[in-house]
Each structure stands twice: as structure tokens, then as C-alpha cells.
């Protein structure tokens, strides 16, 4: 055996550390990070879907539409926007009120889910 008690020899040995071989370690970590990513994405999607379900259960489509209308009007985007709002309001007047509002809510919900899926 070589004499490794010499200080310089110890420095040389320390400078060449024995590295642990992989033996599937990286794959195990990758598997866990993928699981973590999937769990995050699923959680995000579930939150989005729960929010939509809650909105649909807790509020009627008409109320939801009225809230969105108030929000849109408060934004004051000018006459073009008012024209659009008036057109929608006109289209949603009885007797076809329920199908149109339901359709609008469905479109908004779909847009919310798609945006959440993209973000996730």
C-alpha cells in the first residue's frame, strides 16, 4: 500500500473524490418529479372544475350573467363595448333567456378550464 499519510498526498486524494455510481437513482428521482408535476396539474384542474361546479350550483346562470354584465359595464370600454352589451342583452331577453345565458356560462366555463389546463 502506498503511504498516504503525507499531507500533499492527502490533498491529492481529496481532490479526486470517489463518486457514487447512478444505478437507477436518476430514474427514481425523475419518476418522483414527474409524479409531483402530475399531482400539481391535477390539483390545479380539480380546483378549476370545482370552482365552475360551485359557481353553477351556488348561482343561477341569470345571476352569473347579471354579475358579469355589471362587471363589463363598470369597465367602461366605450361605445363599441356598450353596443356589444346591448346586443347580448337584447338576445337574452325572454322567452329565450335561459338557453342563451346557459350557453354563455358554458362558453365562459370552457374558456376557464382551457386557460387552467394551459397554465398547468
Amino acid at each position, binding site marked *: 500500500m502506498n503511504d498516504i499519510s503525507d499531507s500533499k498526498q492527502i490533498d491529492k486524494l481529496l481532490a479526486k*473524490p470517489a463518486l457514487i455510481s447512478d444505478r437507477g437513482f436518476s430514474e427514481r*428521482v425523475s419518476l418522483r418529479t414527474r409524479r409531483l408535476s402530475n399531482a400539481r396539474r391535477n390539483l390545479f384542474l380539480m380546483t378549476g372544475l370545482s370552482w365552475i361546479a360551485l359557481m353553477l350550483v351556488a348561482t343561477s346562470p341569470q345571476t352569473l350573467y347579471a354579475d358579469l354584465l355589471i362587471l363589463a359595464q363598470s369597465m367602461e370600454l366605450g361605445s363599441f363595448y356598450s353596443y356589444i352589451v346591448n346586443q347580448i342583452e337584447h338576445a337574452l331577453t325572454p322567452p329565450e333567456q335561459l338557453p342563451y345565458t346557459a350557453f354563455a356560462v358554458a362558453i365562459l366555463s370552457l374558456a376557464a378550464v382551457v386557460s387552467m389546463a394551459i397554465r398547468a
Partner: protein
Amino acid sequence: MTNESLLIFKAVTRQDNDAFSSLVRMHQGKIRAYLMRLCKSYDLADDIAQETFLTAFRKLHSFKGEGNFSGWLFSIAHNCFLQHIRKTKRRSDITQQFSSEQEIHAEKYDEICTEQMDLEQALRNLNADETATITLCHSFGFSHQEVSDILSMPLGSVKSNISRGKTKLTNLLTAENGLEKAS
């Protein structure tokens, strides 16, 4: 831009799993060797190394690209090790238990010669701070200041731990050689 920088960029900005896996492959050998020296157990070192990489993955957004990625990983690894110690609350027990129980297994390493095995064995007699500072500074090439930042340890303590650790190492290896020569 180097290959590593590109992988870091992809992993940080896009949370890219493949890029992160490549980074794990690049750094696992060093991180596990470092943790092995601290824990004195291959299984425990592997568990803490896995926790290290998962923590790094979760905290990728906090890596701002300042300093090197390797140093950032060592810092997380050391914190994971300390957390484990705090959790078990048996720091000295663990050290003594593993230093007496575990042998160096050559098959666990990519490549290890007899002298390196003797050195690894001698390193088991040092305390965690001495082992950490010597390993980071002499084995993985970090400066004293970088080691101080990684371990959150005052610069003076880093220097004194290295000095004390190296004296211990020299004495241990001298004694071991003396015994072998006598026999």
C-alpha cells in the same frame, strides 16, 4: 451557453422534467458522495439525496442564476441533512452507529482505489462540520467563501474546521499506515 446552463434555463423557466432529469444525472454522483460522507450510510444518503433533488425541483423558481447551480444543490443537500438530524434528534448516536456499523462498499462507487477507500474510512472519524468543509473545499473545489455561503457558517469557522479536520486525517492515516507497516 453551456449545455448545463441550457438545461438549467429549461428546467427553471419551463419546469421541464427532462432537463431536470439530465441535471440530476449530472450532479447525483457528487451529491450522494457528499451525503455519504456526512451520513456514513449509503441508504440514508440516498434517501436524503432524493429529498434534496425533489426540494430543488420544487424550489427551482427560487434559483435566480446567481452563483453556481452545484453550490445551490449542495446547500439544499446540507439543509436536508440537518433537517434529518433535527428530526431524529440523535446526531451523535447516528454518527457513532454508522461509523461502527458501515463498511466502505467499493461496488457503490464508479471507481475507487485502495487509498481512496482508506481516506473514506478515515473521513468517518471526523465530525459533520469538518467533513462538510473539507469535502466541499478540497474535493469539490469550492472556495472558503463559497463553503461559508453553502453551509451558512462563518468564514473563520470554515477555515478552522478544515484545518482541524486535515490534522485529524493526517494523524489517522499515519497511525493506520504505522500499524500496517508494523504488522
